[in-house]
């Protein structure tokens, strides 16, 4: 295997060398002396130390000299037909042809004057890595954003800054902790399971962001990939988001989730420019939900326990509620009023420094940057540190050959709480949720037997609430337990661009390596959990190493024949390959001798299913070739067609290759003669596109039946077992997209309107780990399960209502709507989810041709005030009597559960009036798919110095389940509850909406409309005020730019939702609903930034 890669590499390097050397074959040298003088064109004074370079016909540098103090120079020309390029800092470079002259005088023009008559010509083109097509000729739906436009808000990564800015692009953070990833969805989830993440292309090459299959050490889940973070936002020049399938089809097999093309900054021809920027941010968790204090809690629990079956809580055994001053130890330790959530919170601080240098001359250009980012999270024990460096070099060998070498290196170190377990999507922030439920009458620090406060954290092995992992002392956990992840990533990228036939046939070759090495270490000391020293959760140390190595190549040939003015054609042939290797080593051991020995290399134990030594490695290869042509006629009719073939090593031979065609067209209506008279229209175009892209499965080698080893012996012998079902019938998932778009530019480009209507159909959806009958011997299998549609529309409006010399006001608005529905599904796919016989669950059905996100449950009607109220009544309101004339009381789920409702229990509406509350009383409650999402905001600029930027985002018309309300008012366990429960039912006759407290019994928190709320909102996402220093001041400071700004994020939210944060993402899949379990509103942030350039 390895040899093959090396072989391939050799071939490439060989090819590169040949190509680089090619034009030099045409060289022949002949001595020829030329003398001359370089002078300033204005005052005719000589310019010393000017550079005089001899160039051949392709502008390749052949030789060069410097002028002396009198501006004189002498150069031996290698070829009399060559030209001289004369340049000096502060002057415009000049090319002089020799034409046999032996003496020459060259006058250079100062750039200070030359700047005045610069006319920007040409069209805006953004490097895409494939055919570079001017914005106005694009036949597909894509949006390009200049990073400078969004550089104000404080964010560790560019994805966070893009949040809400682009119609149809949904970005949601997976957690508020530093270093947590973002979930990006372009036009809804294209896939029914797993990740719908877009493909990221950085400087023309795909950038690996996927998380390896068995990467499960509590860092990031599939969707929240933190990898994008590794590009410093300040290094980014432009971001282009390709939304429709015709555009993404060109990237083939990984592009079904959309494509994000990021270009980093490069040096231009200029004197060295140094920029430095600093942003400091203060973040704070707003006040959380008010919870019961220790005294109120100690009243609730005995009442709750007693309500179960009339047996009082025995405080002789359960001393946590005894409150007996004679029992000094328990009395002191369990008579506190602790706010656990507050105890684990802190003020977060972020500082971000970026220093960059860019510049260059005719030949070489450079951009180099160093960034340092340090963030302290709002929870004790969380933080992130990152160093990013980047060097982008361009060297122009000649007009025909250009080299680019980019090297990016990122170091990051992320601290998390030990208990944040990202592998399970249900509990993203265990520490915080434990702190909410933690008994508030417990103290943080322990009192000893004589009642003296000690400096030790109070961590009993267990108490009435249980022990680790259910509960623990959150402060001790945050403080002592560690979970650190360090990653080093180096991405060298080499590119050579050769014009084989100038202007006509251009070729580029890219070679990119990507090495990513991650080390995750965690340690759970005894004093964080208080568990007995023999248990394997004590002093548990883990060390995980993950190495990823990626080699990608890309070879492009672009042919642009000359058809004259009226037509243009570009044809691209692109060949791409990727070889990706992954290796991991994992060690988890427990019971090291001391809480200070935090490394698994210390003598420790592994005999337990959770503790293990584990290694794995895998390799994936892909190849792709693309043929793509863009044809334009009369600037009005533009057609683009493409065909991409992909091969992927994750499929068996039968299904290994995929073919993804695309076609798109643009008709510039405004170019037609009948539109010529309408002068206020700058551009009116209609676009139509169709394309396919594919998706490969996540795991390697699934088309083999793999045998694995048992970790332990049986009777001294090793056992082997088949690990999986051989997947012979597994195919590509293909996304077919259709898009109709309109571009409308009016009033001198002051108003720009983009409208898109689309439908994306995903066929042969790959469902990872679909349940199969366990009769097969396996529980899950990857399958192609059906067809799903994503359809919707998007509208983006960019306006500049005011534009005067002093004032400029811009107003941007975007709005989108997306619907997800199943068109066809495997019969083995579960068609419902959720068990309404249990507390806390909602029913969801999978209905073909209906949008996702609907949920069903009971209707909550208050609380039974007394015994009388629980009598069962029929449709006429008469009391139901049994066959023997006995009175019948309302029951739950007869005959299976057969619970009789008691006074103080929640009333659910008996829809069918049979005196029995069961699944037949379940009704439609809501849908958590927002009808509309979007953002808007004005940018007000005065004098080009003062800027006020406001940005709002919104979601309209959707219902979410207030999971927080549910868990903090269910009064079902030992967990602490919110102060809302103070109004609970206690005695017959009490009229309240809050049912009685019952320990581990009753059905007071069935999934009902009690927890369903309309969560539409409009949020003032960010406010930025920025001030740039005036030109005069800058000149006196000898600086080019000084800008300071103040940004506030998440200032205010307008909503009817009673919970903490209405912005809740819908979990993926057909049963996804939005449940708000966050008990903490989003952190509000205030940042102060400064950017300087000199």
């Amino acid at each position, binding site marked *: 295997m390895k040899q093959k890669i090396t072989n391939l590499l050799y071939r490439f390097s060989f090819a590169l060398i040949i190509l680089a050397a090619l034009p030099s074959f045409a060289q022949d040298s002949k001595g020829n002396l030329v003398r001359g003088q370089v002078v300033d064109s204005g005052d005719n004074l000589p310019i010393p130390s000017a550079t005089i370079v001899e160039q051949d016909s392709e502008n390749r540098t052949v030789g060069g000299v410097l002028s002396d103090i009198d501006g004189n120079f002498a150069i031996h020309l290698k070829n009399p037909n060559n030209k001289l390029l004369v340049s000096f800092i502060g002057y415009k470079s000049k090319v002089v042809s020799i034409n046999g002259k032996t003496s020459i005088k060259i006058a250079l023009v100062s750039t200070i004057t030359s700047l005045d008559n610069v006319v920007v010509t040409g069209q805006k083109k953004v490097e895409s890595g494939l055919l570079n097509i001017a914005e106005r000729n694009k036949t597909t739906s894509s949006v390009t954003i200049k990073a400078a436009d969004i550089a104000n808000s404080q964010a560790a990564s560019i994805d966070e800054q893009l949040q809400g800015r682009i119609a149809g692009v949904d970005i949601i953070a997976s957690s508020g902790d530093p270093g947590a990833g973002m979930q990006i969805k372009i036009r809804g989830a294209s896939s029914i399971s797993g990740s719908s993440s877009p493909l990221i292309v950085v400087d023309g090459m795909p950038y690996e962001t996927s998380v390896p299959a068995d990467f499960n050490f509590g860092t990031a889940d599939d969707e929240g990939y933190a990898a994008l973070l590794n590009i410093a936002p300040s290094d980014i020049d432009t971001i282009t988001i390709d939304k429709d399938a015709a555009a993404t089809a060109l990237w083939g097999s990984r592009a079904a989730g959309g494509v994000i093309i990021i270009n980093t900054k490069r040096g231009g021809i200029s004197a060295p420019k140094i920029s430095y920027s600093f942003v400091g941010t203060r973040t704070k968790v707003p006040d959380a939900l008010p919870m019961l204090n220790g005294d109120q809690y100690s009243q609730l629990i005995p009442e709750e326990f007693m309500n179960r079956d009339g047996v009082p809580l025995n405080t002789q055994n359960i001393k946590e509620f005894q409150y007996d001053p004679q029992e000094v130890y328990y009395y002191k330790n369990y008579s506190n009023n602790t706010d656990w959530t507050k105890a684990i919170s802190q003020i977060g601080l972020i500082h971000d420094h970026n220093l960059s240098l860019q510049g260059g001359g005719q030949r070489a250009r450079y951009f180099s940057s160093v960034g340092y980012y340090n963030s302290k999270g709002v929870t004790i024990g969380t933080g992130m540190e990152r160093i990013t460096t980047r060097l982008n070099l361009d060297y122009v060998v000649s007009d025909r050959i250009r080299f680019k070498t980019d090297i990016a290196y990122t170091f990051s170190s992320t601290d998390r709480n030990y208990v944040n377990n990202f592998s399970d999507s249900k509990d993203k922030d265990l520490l915080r949720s434990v702190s909410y439920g933690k008994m508030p009458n417990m103290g943080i620090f322990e009192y000893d037997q004589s009642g003296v406060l000690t400096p030790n954290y109070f961590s009993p092995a267990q108490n009435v609430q249980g022990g680790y992992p259910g509960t623990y002392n959150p402060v001790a956990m945050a403080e002592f337990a560690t979970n650190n992840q360090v990653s080093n990533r180096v991405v060298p990228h080499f590119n050579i661009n050769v014009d084989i036939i100038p202007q006509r046939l251009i070729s580029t070759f890219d070679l990119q390596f990507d090495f990513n090495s991650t080390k995750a270490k965690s340690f759970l000391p005894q004093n964080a959990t208080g568990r007995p020293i023999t248990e394997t959760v004590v002093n548990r140390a883990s060390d995980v190493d993950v190495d990823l190595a990626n080699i990608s190549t890309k070879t492009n040939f672009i042919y642009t024949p000359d058809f004259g003015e009226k037509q243009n054609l570009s044809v691209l042939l692109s060949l791409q390959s990727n070889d990706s290797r992954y290796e991991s080593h994992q060690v988890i051991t427990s019971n090291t001798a001391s809480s200070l020995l935090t490394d698994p290399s210390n003598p420790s134990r592994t005999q337990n299913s959770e503790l293990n030594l584990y290694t794995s490695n895998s390799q994936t290869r892909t190849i792709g070739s693309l043929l793509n042509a863009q044809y334009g006629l009369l600037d009005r009719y533009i057609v683009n067609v493409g065909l991409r073939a992909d091969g992927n090593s994750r499929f068996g031979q039968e299904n290994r290759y995929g073919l993804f065609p695309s076609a798109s067209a643009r008709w510039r209506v405004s170019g037609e003669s009948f539109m010529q008279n309408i002068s206020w229209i700058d551009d009116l175009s209609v676009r139509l596109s169709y394309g396919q892209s594919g998706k490969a499965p996540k795991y390697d080698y699934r088309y083999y039946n793999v045998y694995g080893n048992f970790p332990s012996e049986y009777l001294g012998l090793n056992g082997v077992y088949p690990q999986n079902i051989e997947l012979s019938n597994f195919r590509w998932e293909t996304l077919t997209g259709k898009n109709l778009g309109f571009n409308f530019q009016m009033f001198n480009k002051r108003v720009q309107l983009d409208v898109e209507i689309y439908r994306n159909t995903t066929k042969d959806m790959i469902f990872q780990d679909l349940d199969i009958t366990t*009769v097969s011997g396996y529980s899950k299998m990857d399958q192609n399960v059906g067809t799903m549609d994503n359809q919707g529309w998007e509208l983006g409006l960019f306006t500049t209502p005011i534009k005067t010399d002093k004032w400029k006001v811009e107003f941007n608005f975007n709005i989108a709507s997306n619907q997800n529905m199943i068109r066809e599904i495997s019969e083995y796919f579960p068609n419902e989810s959720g068990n309404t*016989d249990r507390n806390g669950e909602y029913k969801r059905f999978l209905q073909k041709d209906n949008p996702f996100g609907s949920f069903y449950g009971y209707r909550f009607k208050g609380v039974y005030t007394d015994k009388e109220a629980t009598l069962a009544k029929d449709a006429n309101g008469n009391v139901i009597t049994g066959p023997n004339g006995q009175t019948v009381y309302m029951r739950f789920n007869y005959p299976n559960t057969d619970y009789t409702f008691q006074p103080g229990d929640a009333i659910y509406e008996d829809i069918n009036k049979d005196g029995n509350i069961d699944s037949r009383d379940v009704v439609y409650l809501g849908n958590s798919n927002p009808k509309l999402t979007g953002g808007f905001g004005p940018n007000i600029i005065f004098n080009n110095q003062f800027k006020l930027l406001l940005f709002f985002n919104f979601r309209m018309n959707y219902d979410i389940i207030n999971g927080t309300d549910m868990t903090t008012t269910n009064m079902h366990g030992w967990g602490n509850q919110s102060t809302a429960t103070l109004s609970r039912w206690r005695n017959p006759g009490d009229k309240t909406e809050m049912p009685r407290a019952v320990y581990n019994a009753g059905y007071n928190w069935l999934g009902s409309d009690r927890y369903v709320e309309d969560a539409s909102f409009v949020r003032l996402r960010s406010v930025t005020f920025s001030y740039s220093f005036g030109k005069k001041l800058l000149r006196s400071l000898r600086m080019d730019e000084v800008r300071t700004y103040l940004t506030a994020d998440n200032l205010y939210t307008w909503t009817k939702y009673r919970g903490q944060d209405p912005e809740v993402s819908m979990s993926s899949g057909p049963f996804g609903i939005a449940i708000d379990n966050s008990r903490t509103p989003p952190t509000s942030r205030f940042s102060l930034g400064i950017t300087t350039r000199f």
Partner: protein
Amino acid sequence: MRTKIKSILALLLIFVTATSCDDYLDLRPEDGIVREEFWKTKEDVQAAVIGIYSSLLKKPPGAQIPTNGTDYNISEYLFMYGEIRADMISPAGFVTLDQRDITTSNILSSNDLTSWAAFYRVINYCNTVIELAPAVRESDPTLSQAQLNNYLSEALAIRAYLYFTLARTFKDVPLKLNATLSDMDNFQLAKTPQNEIFEQVIKDLALAEEYAVTDYGNIPSNKGRITVYAINAMQADVYLWTDRYTEALTAADKVISSGKFELIPASNSWFSRVFAEGNTTESIFEFQYTTQNLNPFYDMFLQRPEFIASPVVLEDVFGVDFADPTNRDIRGERSSLVAGTNEIYKYTGLNMDDRKSLQESDTHWFVYRYSDVLLLKAEALTQLDRGAEAVAIIEDIRTKRRAISLTAQIVNPASKSEVTDYLLAERAREFAFEGKRWFDVLRNARRKDYDRLDLLKNMALISAPADQLQTILAKLEDPNSHYLPINEYEMYTNKALVQNPFYK
């Protein structure tokens, strides 16, 4: 010049594309073996057979769990299926909601204990050996037919035992006898009636007996792997379930007459030899947990207790002689349980004084012990109207176990019902917490069209919470309620299945 460039360009194109795509994309795992490379030597067959045993002890690494399911180890299921619905255990502090629901007969098809995934997983490993091992002889001539047969016998017997357990727990279950290899296979199998499952078990055991090993050459293997005696013990058991008492008697007698087993006389070291150490002459088949592969019960009964002995066990089952505390049934206090706390002690005790530490928690799971065969024989004798012989066996065991006179019963050997009561009481003492109780009572209750349904009801009277007693008694009237429902997960993944009518 142009042509030169063009020719070089053409060359380059060839360089880049010439690598054969298929070779380039054909990757094989480096850290696992694929089926095409496995099944070549006799060592491979052995490793696959050992894999079956390992999977009985612990689930294999990376095995997936059904959605919303909890995957217990086979030994835990065997414990729970045998005890959780019976009268000898009670929920303890760490019991899960689903476990508690079963103890209160509030059984729903969503209950995760109704998942049979772990059983079919091992059945598939057995099927794989039975299907693919015979071909190994072609590539490895050193694998003799006898050796191959021995391996097949182990796979057949384990598969039979698992189907036997499934049929006793779920009644009708799908019968899959071929290996699952590729996603082209059909897994949509309908249920096979319980009696047909039993027939298949009998058939498999007969073949296994023919192929079986009598002696592996060392004691741990003789107790930890399937021998002919383990097969005979299973046969005795399954014949009793199918009311074939003569065959049951014959099978039991095969074990007894082999002369390889005997009961160990009561002494202070009896508990520690039979249970804490295991592999004694009393033992026929035990799951061999070791200090490298700890049993799951330390956690289940001691560290985070999910179950304790029910409060009646000490006094009603073993009896307490208040006059003479030293007069104790050797199987009771500090053997099966700890007096006072009702902690289940059998799997965590080192000897009658100390518990094992977590690191040495290697107590085996006892599938069949010699006393089981003796009492199965007694049961067969009872049904064959040889009650006196049955009572003699019971009395012999009682003597050897120092059962106290308080628990002795004077029974009329001619009365099947009286002998059965005595037999069940003795089995409760002998196999306390060994996953036998529910099946013992059910087996005797269901005979002759539920002639002894009272046995199940009496059990409910002891164990049911007062407020649910009537409901539970009413439920027991329907024989279908004696079996667990098919998990809802199976229902939607296998359209051919029909739910047990009691749970519809």
